[in-house]
């Protein structure tokens, strides 16, 4: 209802709300379209809610049932997809592992376990498995991007021209493993690359609990750099508190800020670090709610904003504005009762346009935001 156009009153009359088709199709998606991705993140951070547990159980259980019902392929197919989700869940249980990496590993396992005899069949299997994974959580950008990139990367080889299927398959497997390796090691590479940007005596502002950024700061501390960190509180997930816990374990001086105190403290900040849920084609990032705000303030005060993101997060999305993305909602507790008539903005993430970002630290190197599109073009061409 709240649109750009001041004629929203007219628009409300003329338009009818689009039917929520998505939720009916996929039974294990919460009809309220609470983002499973953010709930999973919350779970990792120890903030487990009963809903999520039930949902996860339902997900694992339902998927197999779902696949058996919908699968048009023989038992082979069902086993595979069952396999994929199982594998995925196995991987996902480690809180340190990124979801996309888990998915990539699972897909590599699909190739390994595949009993297809032709290349087309293998590709179709891969596609099915990736669709299943993606449908697990439609709001997770890195998952979708990771799966897509994996498939493009793996099938983008001239090995497919070979006569011998087995050699082609082993080549595919090789590439899949390699991609998995790269993705796993991505964090370490990024941490290494960003060491040059942290100098002694600097003050870093961090928003959200990004494991990549944590890795960077950890490595810097291990290299005996002297710096201090300002963390935003990160409501409602409380990510700031968690991050400050972690950092204090590493003996890094930390200061917690209210989300609203960012502009107040921006003077004493030397640089801003942020992770990314996804990097879009324009070079902008989609990250936890509040990143855009901080980037705007930093930009207006001429502070550099550095984004640490692995390369499998490059997505083929191109949001024009904040509302142009698939919505990802999460429950927000205010601590006090809110009357029912009051709407709450529950979106979990926002889009930061590329002009407010200075550099991207990726495992492909330290890049400027416009390089994202170049990389994607070369991969998808």
């Amino acid at each position, binding site marked *: 209802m709240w649109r750009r156009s*001041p004629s929203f009153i007219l628009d409300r009359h003329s338009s009818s709300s689009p039917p929520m088709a998505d939720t009916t199709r996929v039974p294990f998606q919460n009809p309220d379209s609470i983002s499973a991705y953010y709930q999973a993140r919350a779970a990792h951070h120890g903030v487990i809610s009963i809903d999520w547990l039930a949902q996860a159980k339902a997900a694992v259980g339902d998927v197999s049932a779902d696949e058996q019902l919908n699968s048009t392929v023989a038992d082979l197919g069902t086993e595979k997809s069952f396999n994929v989700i199982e594998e995925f869940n196995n991987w996902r249980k480690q809180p340190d592992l990124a979801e996309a990496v888990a998915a990539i590993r699972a897909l590599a396992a699909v190739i390994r376990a595949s009993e297809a005899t032709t290349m087309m069949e293998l590709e179709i299997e891969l596609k099915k498995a990736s669709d299943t994974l993606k449908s697990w959580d439609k709001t997770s950008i890195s998952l979708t991007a990771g799966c897509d990139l994996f498939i493009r990367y793996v099938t983008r080889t001239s090995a497919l021209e070979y006569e011998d299927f087995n050699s082609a398959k082993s080549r595919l497997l090789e590439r899949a493993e390699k991609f998995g390796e790269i993705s796993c090691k991505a964090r370490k590479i990024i941490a290494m690359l960003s060491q040059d940007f942290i100098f002694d005596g600097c003050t870093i502002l961090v928003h959200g609990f990004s494991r990549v950024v944590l890795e960077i700061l950890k490595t810097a501390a291990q290299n005996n750099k002297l710096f201090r960190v300002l963390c935003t509180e990160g409501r409602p997930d409380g990510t700031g508190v968690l991050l400050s816990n972690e950092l204090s374990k590493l003996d890094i001086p930390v200061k917690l800020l209210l989300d609203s105190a960012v502009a107040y403290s921006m003077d004493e900040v030397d640089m801003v670090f942020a992770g990314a849920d996804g990097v879009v084609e324009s070079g902008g990032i989609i990250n936890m709610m509040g990143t855009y705000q901080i980037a705007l303030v930093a930009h207006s005060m001429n502070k550099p904003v550095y984004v640490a993101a692995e390369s499998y997060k490059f997505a083929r999305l191109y949001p024009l504005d904040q509302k142009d993305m698939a919505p990802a909602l999460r429950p927000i507790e205010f601590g006090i009762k809110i009357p029912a008539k009051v709407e709450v903005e529950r979106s979990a993430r926002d889009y930061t346009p*590329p002009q407010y970002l200075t550099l991207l630290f990726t495992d492909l190197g330290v890049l400027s935001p416009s390089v994202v599109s170049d990389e994607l073009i070369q991969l998808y061409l």
Partner: protein
Amino acid sequence: MESRRNPRAVVDPKVRQVGFFTSSQPDSTQQQQPDPIASVSSPPVSTISPSGNSLSPVMIPPPRHNSSDTFPLRGAAAAAASAVSPSSFSYSSRRDFPDGSMTASPGRVSRGSFVKSYVPVASSLPGVGIDSMAAAKSSSVPATGLTTVSVVNMPPGLSEEVQSDQKNNSKSLKEKTTKAERRALQEAQRAAKAAAKAEGGGKVPPVTLGSVAGTSVKAAKTAKPTSQKNDVVVAAGPSEKKGGPSEKDRKKDAPHPRMQYDDESRVVKAKRRAVVKQTEAKNRVELFRHLPQYEHGTQLPDLETKFFQLDPMHPAVYKVGLQYLSGDIAGGNARCIAMLQAFQEVVKDYSTPPEKTLNRDMTAKISSYVSFLIECRPLSVSMGNAIRFVKNRIAKLPITLSESEAKAALQSDIETFINEKIIVADNVIVKHAVTKIRDGDVLLTYGSPTAVEMVLLRAHELRKKFRVLVVDSRPKLEGQLLLRRLIKRGINCTYTHINAISYIMHEVTKVFLGASSVLSNGTVYSRVGTACVAMVANAFRVPVLVCCEAYKFHERVQLDSICSNELGDPNAISKVRGREDINYLDGLTNNTNLQFLNLMYDATPSDYISMIITDYGMVPPTSVPVIVREYQKEHVLV
């Protein structure tokens, strides 16, 4: 330092002096003239243009003056050369500058180099659009420029004439210097020869002749046949084929009656080869002298009568050229497709002459057809890229193919190009763009871009709820065509003119624009007015989406809308169709204080563009050079 400053009172305001000036006092600089000029001639082109000597290259002078024309010519040439991206054309002029030891010859050389280098470049790479501009420039400049035969006498002659120029504003220069007298004599001789060979003295109306003569300085020397020859030969200039550097040195670019030709036969040949008799427009805006501007309405009847005499020209190409001239076919895609289909006909009817190879001969033919089309209307970038593709294909034909096989291969290649790069590309663009249209959107579009129209129609088919705001502008009023087609499909539309753009922008959610071309630095080169719309949208923080097929991308870079553009019919501005009572400007077309400027294109900086939708997907403007690179690779591989 006071000597460096030009006393403003003396200078004709029409003369735009750019950059530093040394003293403009002719008497004091009489002795200095040779040096600055000589020194100016030697340094590379890039340094000449803005920071040059006052009298020499920098000045964009009034058309009358004999001698000053050489320098502005050179300067304008230099300016164009420096503005144009590196191409063989600019290299040749660069090369020629240091060669010119004599002051006048660089001027001549530069113009010669324009014509000569134009053609080889036309058959090789960078945008034919630029080259046509350069050629057009070369053809337009001679109308006003003048080179002198005797180089040695240039400096004193120049200073004298400059002095007189500054004092004398009248179009017809009555003063004759000794040099001028000599020139007049030579020109009279030339005119006599030309008149003898002229195809028909009565074709070009005397009025235009007189006015053309009027614009140029040499009214004193100009005989009617001379002007006519000038007009004809000017148009023929660009159609000159091969030119080696040595020829460039000798030959002036566009055969100009007031210019001295070393090679009589060349001039005559060029004139004979010219198909379109373009008459130079009078009273042109100084800043746009480098662009061709012809009298509208004079060529069409002439060409139509010549329809059955067109030996060298294929009828399909002739027809397309006429359609361009009359404005029947407009728009990047339409023109390109029409041209390619004409080329298909050409290939179908082609038969290799004896003793010639198919590759070379067909390439030569295509080049000649292209120059004819340029005479009708300057090429758009889409057409330039398509021509490059066709020539590439011809060159790549294996020698072993028989003629019919080669012809069939070519025809199918052209067909594939049209299909893949235009038709299917449009479908892909539509597919991407409709994902950006949401219910409740208010979409603004400007002019009549084909790609955007398809997007809107498709979105309507998909039952999205949106309304469209069509912004239009004079004199073409192209938006009305789009409006009609949208209304027919039942789309909710609003129509307004561009002067209301800031008034309605606040209710717009997205802006969809089309493009004639997207350049390497992300600049969008499109119908004039697009930059204005994009700028206002940016100010209101409305996202601007440009829909453009990838074959329209070009690797050149353009920083402003001046260095490369197209001038339309100036009368279209002064008149309003259907409103005969708006005739305030009648009779003012020849007034020296008033020039009409009808630009066709403008350049929108990449900062105002949010996204470019191409058949390669949705990309930010910064990724255009990547696509250009990948695109060319594709050509090479394919």
